């Protein structure tokens, strides 16, 4: 593996909760804690999780919209918080979830795409050529330059948003649920476009989604988040064919699928009880212990260390620790490779 393009080390984010007349700090929400992963060039890495898992907060920290409270993000080896790193931030762009609200309604599509180009003080003629080229790249007709967002369908708007993100000639694109507001037939078109762009422009992707089926088809590695912590990381093949963490297993088991073949490949786990607890009031120890069907005393005390299950497959669960035999005789957690 070559040198990583992006390295996230021990990333954490705590938001202060203010209240009362004077806005005094009343408490804190630990949105993200001790998250580490790295991406090599040209790779697509997925962050999966439910609401409150911290996936969007991580995305915002990578693109610099939110400052981390702990840890570091290295891009091509330099810390994004350092002066040198700040200069390379242009190479990281983001595509937001809802193209209906991420495009300025009072700007034409051409004007929106031109914003990043103007920021670089390019000449008028140069900008026009680039805009035409970008529209072509995302397969929109050239005359969309003068159209306004309300004239476009959801899929067309998302294409325009992708073109705007590409205008800065990024190396890394952070895609935050880029298709969750779209119909499946439109989603398929956008995903096809992203795959093609990734290949032709050599882009690296961080793909954030709650749709695990979509994730399986788009990324090569997945990190599963629960309440701000990465609880399992691995190649898609490992995560989907041999999920180890009880949460990952339950999550995959509850994905609605459309064929018997897919149903058969889901882990056999009962429907999880309850809901994700509030990040403002994190359970002690492993945050999942309040819903985990296999939890035992230790889980409520100590947050588990990462256990290596295979090359590039890690999970944080006491049940997976070497020498732990509690689950050996149940089919719930399979030994690696079994």
């Amino acid at each position, binding site marked *: 593996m070559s040198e990583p393009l992006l390295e996230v080390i021990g990333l954490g984010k705590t938001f202060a909760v203010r209240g009362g007349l004077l806005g005094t700090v009343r408490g804190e929400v630990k949105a993200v804690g001790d998250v580490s992963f790295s991406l090599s060039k040209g790779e697509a890495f997925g962050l999966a999780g439910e609401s409150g898992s911290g996936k969007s907060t991580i995305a915002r920290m990578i693109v610099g919209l939110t400052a981390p409270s702990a840890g570091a993000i290295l891009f091509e080896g330099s810390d994004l918080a350092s002066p040198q790193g700040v200069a390379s931030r242009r190479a990281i762009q983001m595509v937001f979830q809802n193209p209906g609200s991420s495009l300025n309604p009072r700007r034409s599509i051409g004007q929106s795409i031109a914003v990043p180009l103007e920021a670089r003080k390019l000449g008028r003629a140069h900008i026009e050529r680039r805009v035409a080229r970008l529209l072509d790249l995302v397969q929109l007709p050239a005359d969309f330059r003068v159209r306004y967002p309300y004239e476009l369908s959801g899929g067309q708007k998302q294409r325009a948003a992708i073109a705007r993100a590409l205008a800065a000639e990024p190396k890394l694109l952070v895609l935050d649920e880029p298709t969750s507001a779209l119909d499946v037939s439109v989603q398929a*078109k956008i995903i096809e476009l992203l795959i093609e762009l990734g290949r032709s422009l050599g882009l690296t992707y961080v793909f954030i989604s709650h*749709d695990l089926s979509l994730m399986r088809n788009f990324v090569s590695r997945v990190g599963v988040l629960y309440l701000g912590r990465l609880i399992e990381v691995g190649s898609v093949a490992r995560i989907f064919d041999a999920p180890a963490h009880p949460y990952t297993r339950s999550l995959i088991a509850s994905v609605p699928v459309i064929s018997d073949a897919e149903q058969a490949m889901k882990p056999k786990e009962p429907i999880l009880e309850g809901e994700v607890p509030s990040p403002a009031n994190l359970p002690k120890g492993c945050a999942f212990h309040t819903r985990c069907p296999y939890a035992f005393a230790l889980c409520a005390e100590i947050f588990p260390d990462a256990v290596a299950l295979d090359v590039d497959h890690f999970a944080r669960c006491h049940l997976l620790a070497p020498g732990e035999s509690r689950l050996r005789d149940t089919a719930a957690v399979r030994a690696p490779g079994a």
Partner: protein
Amino acid sequence: MSAEPLLSVRSLSVDFSTYGRVSHVLRDVSLDVPARRHVALVGESGCGKSVTMKAIMGILAQPPARIVGGEIRFDGRDLLQVRGGEWDAWRGTAMSMVFQDPMTSLNPVFTIGDQMETILKYADRRLGRRRDRRGRLDRVYEVLAQVRMPDPERIAKSYPIMLSGGMRQRVLIAMALLTEPRLLIADEPGTALDVTTQAQILKLLRDLVEERGLALLMITHNLGLVREAADFVYVMYAGAVVERGPAVEIFARPSHPYTRALFDCVPKLSGETTFKGIDGSLPDYGAPPPGCRFAPRCPLAVAMCNRSPDERPVGPNHSAACWRLEEAVA
């Protein structure tokens, strides 16, 4: 099935007039929802699912909409012939709706109990039933327990913001059950929720259909939910039902070219998805194609598709409206 189903929509056609222009939105939509059955109406945005649902509930704004043909038969009576006041008595009591967005469908400034009690107060008034606040609250607790809420009295005292998304969705289901309807119409149930919570809601709906003998019409774009939950499926495209059949049949043998294309677009958990999408876009409802409305986007379309296709059988109780079925399934 020999007896007439609880809800039977027959050849419903709806036009919309906007700025002097007429859009032919629904065309000959027919569907049945028998008691103790979970029926799903699936389709993408703009296919007419919500218009169908609103027409059934009698909440379609007319104008701009105009029902130009068909019947909506509920328990043997054509609701379209029933006049204003009488329909009000039906709506909310004989049938009720579970709204889509648990985050915005509840009033943030009233407690759950207040909101539910108000619904009952007006339902009682419509039905000429006498019951005091205490009696109504008892019914509220009863229904909250039916949707598996722990500690109903505490929930009733809560404001919506104090409840999680899944709990709010349960409250919306409870609200729909307050007046003991026989038909429940659920608009995209659970789609705003996380998958682990969604699974719980689907299970609850399934139990209600079985335990209380409800007829459930679910309107959704999520094919995965349909396969998990529904007994019978109608697939809609551009204001027309293109395929119908038992869920097992539809998922084993999707037959209409649109259904097949749609299924191909759904990402597979197995990782074997080819993201082709469907070329083109929905037709202009002002001047829809004369025959099959999918023809302009259909790779199999031929000249004959300019005539309205007949519904042709594919399997037991399973049919699709397409001239080119043999080629489609081949």
